[in-house]
């Protein structure tokens, strides 16, 4: 029943947020608070999905939770209204709000593994809301759960609910959480990064399930994510947020293709580059002895399961090789093997033509110096008790025996190389942002003047714009110093941007290896194709296209299982 006309539109509005202001208490200071959501207004119509997008600290999750009349401990709604179906949740006592939560507005969290109670069976948790809200009996709730499990393509839907959370996989648990949210047939679903923690090949399946569910039940949704391409698949409209304020809002297509604000344009262009940028032309590969050569290397933990299986790989001087794979593929273990943290069981590692001792302890100081590592989490990569000057100065004095003013001069130079001000030397990591910390990590690595730098998921903990800056910096350093990079990553966008050569890893083995342009263009290895086709693209109908194509070739989809 098509409803046009302004009045009908008005009636259709299920949630109206006006001038929402949420304050967060500042730790350690009494009565001090800073706004984390600042004057945001939005409207949500029945059956419509609004995407909330922004970097960390944008306040998108806080807004999502506010739609349930909930704020995290330490936060408080200090202004504005949240009108759901004529009732202002911001003014309602908690006992009254409770009647809405779970029954008419429901929530799907980022991590299903953490959001399911480990001590209770899935049935008890999925059926709990309708029973406790007095909508169904336990047996009805159980039947409803089973029905939802079936709708969400979960295996053995009749008995699925008898399991405990630890007995099902991550992707299945995420769908079970969708079932839990839908159990009361809510009018609004708040989805808070529901696919972010998943591997790309799993993400696409969960995304498809969620989209089907929302459409079929005509549920309104607030879809919160940092990934524009993901939200484009599911949202009718998109709101871009930054520092708790709205940047712009509009139909999904407009935001994607005709962004008005500079900030949105940056987000769009950075994200678009991940999937649609043309592959860079192959660079000339330096001849001569490779910097690193792995020859039939296998490794395992406590000689039980082989985590690295017969891997051979070479990295030429000045070249960037990316090892790409999903979680559990063994890509990070490969980095540990090269560093000497996990001695391989068989095979050899050669560095600039000379064999490298397997164990860390047997390697000389100079051998250690020539391979440096940059880590994923800048928060734990730097000792919080040391100043940046100490962190950067140590490798300088340790490897080159410099002292006093020489070290200080070198630290200044290193900070300059990573575009940080010289007075950062006196600060501690806690005073720096994530991106700045990652720059310090890079500076620490180049302080050793290495020939090979291993970058283990260096951008995956960072916001897209910050990550972009880090990748540019790494490229700049490579041009200056001529060192080789080994990128360990799950992010195909990163691979596409930085690498000369790619190695695709699956269950500890390389399934494809070669120049970027060759591996990433047809004819593909089936797993490479699956990976590449699973990365969401910045087109509104991308998801449907992929699913339609997969339906034709079920063989490829089966590979991900």
């Amino acid at each position, binding site marked *: 029943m098509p409803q046009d006309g302004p009045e009908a539109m008005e009636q259709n509005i299920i949630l109206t947020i006006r001038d929402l202001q949420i304050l967060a208490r500042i730790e350690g200071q009494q009565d001090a608070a800073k706004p984390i959501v600042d004057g945001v207004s939005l409207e949500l119509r029945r059956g419509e999905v609004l995407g909330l997008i922004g970097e960390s600290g944008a306040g998108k999750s806080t807004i999502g939770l506010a739609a*349930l009349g909930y704020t995290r401990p330490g936060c408080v709604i200090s202004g504005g209204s949240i009108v759901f179906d004529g009732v202002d949740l911001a003014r309602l006592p908690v006992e009254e709000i409770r009647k809405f*939560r779970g029954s008419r507005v429901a929530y799907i969290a980022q991590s299903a593994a953490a959001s399911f109670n480990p001590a*209770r069976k899935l049935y008890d948790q999925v059926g709990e809301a309708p029973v406790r*809200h007095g909508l169904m009996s336990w047996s009805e709730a159980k039947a409803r759960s089973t029905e939802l499990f079936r709708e969400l393509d979960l295996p053995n839907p009749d008995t699925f609910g008898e399991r405990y959370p630890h*007995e099902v996989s991550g992707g299945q648990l995420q769908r079970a959480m969708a079932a839990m949210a839908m159990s009361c047939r809510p009018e609004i679903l708040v989805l808070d990064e529901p696919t972010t923690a998943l591997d790309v090949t799993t993400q696409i399946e969960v995304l498809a399930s969620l989209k089907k569910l929302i459409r079929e039940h005509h549920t309104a949704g607030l879809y919160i994510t940092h990934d524009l391409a993901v939200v484009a698949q599911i949202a009718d409209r998109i709101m871009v947020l930054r520092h708790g304020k709205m940047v712009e809002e509009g139909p999904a297509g407009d935001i994607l293709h005709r962004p008005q604000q500079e900030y949105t344009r940056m987000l769009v262009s950075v994200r678009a580059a991940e999937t649609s940028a043309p592959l860079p032309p192959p660079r000339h590969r330096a001849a001569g002895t490779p910097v690193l050569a792995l020859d039939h290397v296998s490794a395992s933990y406590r000689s039980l399961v082989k985590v690295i299986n017969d891997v051979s790989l070479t990295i030429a001087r000045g070249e960037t090789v990316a090892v790409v794979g999903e979680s559990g593929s063994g890509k990070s273990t490969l980095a540990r093997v090269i560093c000497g943290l996990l001695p391989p069981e068989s095979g050899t590692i050669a560095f600039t033509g000379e064999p490298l001792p397997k164990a860390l302890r047997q390697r000389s100081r100079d051998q250690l110096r020539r391979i440096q590592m940059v880590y994923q989490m800048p928060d734990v990569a730097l000792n919080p008790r040391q100043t940046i000057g100490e962190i950067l100065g140590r490798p300088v004095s340790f490897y080159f025996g410099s002292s006093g003013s020489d070290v200080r001069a070198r630290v200044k130079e290193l900070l300059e190389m990573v575009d940080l001000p010289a007075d950062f030397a006196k600060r501690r990591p806690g005073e720096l942002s994530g991106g700045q910390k990652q720059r310090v990590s890079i500076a620490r690595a180049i302080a050793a003047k290495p020939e090979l730098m291993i970058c283990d998921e260096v951008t995956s903990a960072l916001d897209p714009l910050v990550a972009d800056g880090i990748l540019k910096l790494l490229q700049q350093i490579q041009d200056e110093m001529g060192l080789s990079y080994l990128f360990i990553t799950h992010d195909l966008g990163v691979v596409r941007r930085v690498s000369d050569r790619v190695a695709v890893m699956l269950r500890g083995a390389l399934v494809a290896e070669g120049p970027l342009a060759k591996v990433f263009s047809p004819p593909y290895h089936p797993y490479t194709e699956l990976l590449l086709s699973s990365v969401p693209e910045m087109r509104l109908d991308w998801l449907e296209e992929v699913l339609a194509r997969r339906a034709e070739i079920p063989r490829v989809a089966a590979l991900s299982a």
Partner: protein
Amino acid sequence: MLALLARRLALGVLTILVTSVLIFAGTEVLPGDVATAILGRSATPESIESIRKAMGLHDPAPVRYVRWLTNFLQGDLGTSLANGRPIAQQIASRLGNTLFLASVAAAIAVPLSIILGVMAAIRANGLFDRAISVATLVAISFPEFFIAYVLIIIVAVNLGWFPSLASISPVMDLGDRLYVVALPALTLVMVVLAHMMRMTRASVIGVMSSPYIEMAVLKGLPGWRVVVQHALPNALAPIINVVALNLAYLIVGIIVVEVVFVYPGMGQLMVDAVAKRDVPVVQACGLIFAGTYVGLNMIADILAIFSNPRLRRPR
């Protein structure tokens, strides 16, 4: 899970064995032996020699250990050096008294502390919680004898409600027994309550900050249901451990409390024996105390295994 249980049981038995070796070895490795201890300053080489022979002290240590342990398991705890009477006889009635006092204290302290600890955790940093946390901090700082004497002065001397000496005898009926142990039991309750409440509170707060608790709140469940159905099942294992740990405090506390109230229990017997250096009695009491402690810990671990589906149904 059966394998897990079997392993835990085997570990418990092993621990008790190791404990018994330690208790036995403690008296072996250290200088001086039982014979010199019995005779003290009046010892002559001849008299020491004759006692050594009589007691089989010339046998190698492992032989004596096995003999000691097998006798112990058959109920023969040896003879006291101080009065020459069989230890089993002395311990029998005292063990009952100690267990009675400990059970009365535990029966009050365990449920009360869990309820209060959970209540404090639900409204963490609220008024009740802050009052409780100050009160328990003060209480854990009090030595047992301080609590005991304060109670005696107030309740026994000034109010005259309960006797200050807990002289119990087998002919008393349950009501009289409870009347007599009221003050020692109350002292123990106060000692254990504070510890147990603080730990219960901490473990429930740990669970309450989990995302699945937020999820339960977002499902619209009332606060008590969130706690009872979502937090408690997960806090169970830590709480069980807290209880077991505090029953150990009870064992330590009971020794001091028995001395204060002149209560005829194992603790007093052991303290007297230490003062007289009556090693066989100390060994026997020590093994019984330690065995109880190890047993309690084992039961706690087994209950914890049952309360955790990850352990109950490993993938």
